[in-house]
């Protein structure tokens, strides 16, 4: 039993609505419509919410707010755009400060038009969102049980945008450790990654057709293979995917004398994983005020 469909908690955000739709959202909670009959609760806290209800078009001031609220919601989650302004920008579409509908910032799953949107339509939209929510949960369960059958393949140039996303999501936890978002892995652009792609071997870990992990490496021509940017999506950590990727990338360079890898000095988990793979630290080098790189090496057997 998932219970997900029986207890959808919503968070409501007024992007730049005229308040017409907002009043209707609140009306849904009143005795006349009483959405709590379906277990729907208006939480006011993104971390507790499953469904993100947005009213009004997005303007330049609140793009980041909408993005932030969306990012703070735990998976599985769905977004419902309520009212014509949230769907497309509505009559405010041409305004100099309006970016358009909600889908210009975050992915929208259900569009509920109306000016103002009626409570019946809101309830209908939320009920449709429930179906999507359940499908997402099923996909989550499927991919987590399938983590053991991750396929490791050579990445192609077409994979690069997805690989960059995986890298940045994975390195968010590193940036958090050091309180520093200027780590090279976080700053890398697609063009720089494409340049790397020309001279390095890129591997991707695929679960259910989705890239969940990546690693790359290159031979410096002097007997050392440099391995870098091991990235595993947070949801798939602790299942040995990193270990398998390291083994796979080492196998790509059979004729080198030694392998070299580096990480930040406070990334205890990384250092532990590398040490378990036979890497020994041999030097440290300051990178900036926050981070010191720890270099680890392993002799080729």
């Amino acid at each position: 039993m998932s219970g997900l469909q029986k207890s959808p908690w919503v968070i409501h955000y007024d992007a730049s609505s005229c308040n017409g739709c907002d009043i209707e959202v609140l009306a849904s909670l009143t005795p006349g419509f009483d959405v709590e009959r379906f277990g729907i609760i208006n939480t006011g806290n993104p971390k507790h919410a499953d469904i993100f209800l947005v009213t009004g078009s997005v303007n330049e001031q609140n793009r980041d707010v909408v993005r932030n609220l969306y990012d703070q919601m735990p998976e599985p989650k769905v977004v419902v755009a309520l009212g014509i302004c949230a769907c497309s920008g509505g009559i405010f579409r041409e305004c100099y400060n309006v970016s358009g509908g909600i889908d210009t910032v975050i992915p929208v799953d259900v569009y509920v038009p109306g000016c103002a949107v009626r409570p019946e339509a809101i309830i209908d939209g939320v009920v449709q969102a429930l179906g999507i929510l359940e499908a997402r949960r099923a996909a989550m369960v499927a991919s987590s049980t399938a983590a053991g059958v991750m396929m490791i393949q050579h990445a192609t140039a077409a994979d690069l945008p997805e690989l960059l996303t995986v890298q940045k999501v994975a390195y968010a936890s590193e940036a958090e450790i050091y309180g520093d978002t200027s780590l090279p892995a976080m700053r890398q652009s697609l063009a720089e990654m494409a340049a790397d792609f020309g001279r390095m071997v890129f591997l991707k870990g695929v679960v259910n057709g989705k890239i969940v992990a990546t690693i790359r490496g290159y031979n410096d021509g002097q007997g050392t293979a440099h391995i870098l940017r091991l990235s595993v999506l947070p949801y798939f950590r602790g299942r040995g995917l990193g270990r398998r990727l390291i083994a796979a990338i080492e196998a790509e360079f059979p004729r080198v004398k030694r392998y070299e890898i580096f990480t930040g000095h406070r990334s205890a988990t990384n250092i532990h994983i590398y040490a378990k793979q036979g890497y020994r630290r041999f030097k440290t080098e300051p990178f900036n005020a926050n981070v010191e790189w720890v270099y680890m090496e392993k002799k080729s057997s």
Partner: protein
Amino acid sequence: MSPWWRLLIYLLAAPIVGGLLAGIDRRLSARMQARIGPPLLQPFYDVAKLLSKERMVVRRSQSFYILFFFLLTVFTGALFFCGSDLLLVFFALTLSGIFFVLGAYKASSPYSFVGASRELIQMMAYEPAVLLTAVGLYMVTHTFSVHEIAALPSMPVLLLPGVFFALMYAMEIKFRKSPFDLATSHHAHQELVRGITTEFSGPILAIIEVAHWYENVMLLGWIFLFFSIHWAIGLACTAAAFFLLVVVDNACARVKWQFMLRSAWYVTFVLGCGNILVLWLLEMFGILTLKH
């Protein structure tokens, strides 16, 4: 029944009873507001949902504190239903509360901080009443043992109406009901977001929820002790007290924390201490004998 059987029944039945009570509470509240309300099993759906959500934490150690909050709450209830010392139960419960507060402080967020400091103030507000309950029950029954108090064919509430009122005042705080739902609330109040539980989500929030079910069952057990003359009377009076808590919840707006602290202490010291003083005077002048 041996204490081990009671322990087993408590461990298995308390979450079920607690969850049903939460469902009854939500349905009763809805009816009082002229709504239909959620299904009776809604709290169970909510917890099942939360368990299937992504694990998302600000700091990993916050889950560790919540785990201890859960274990200590269950442990406190186990002590109580095994018939252990009442004082021990009260202090163990305080400890579990402190772990909850620590968990909230660990997640450095202003909402969580406000909730945590309010929780501490709430503890300050209700602790005197809880301690007086132990004192009062000891005066009447000459024992701190829950087992012996429950076994006595007496109605402590008859001699301790003031103490009981003070405890009910504390219960309104402990059950997180209006007018004292300052630290967090089960209803959709938005101005504090969710106070102490703001930064907890998914499975961790589910653990907090289940811990509250265990806790509520034990708190109702405290009320039961005041009516322990016969189990049927005890259960009926406990149910009535629970109903009263829900009525007050729906009839009151939230107050400021200063008012909560002051009024809780006034009620405790005037009614609770007054009650105990009167009992003591009556016994000293030989009008009443509290011997069993």
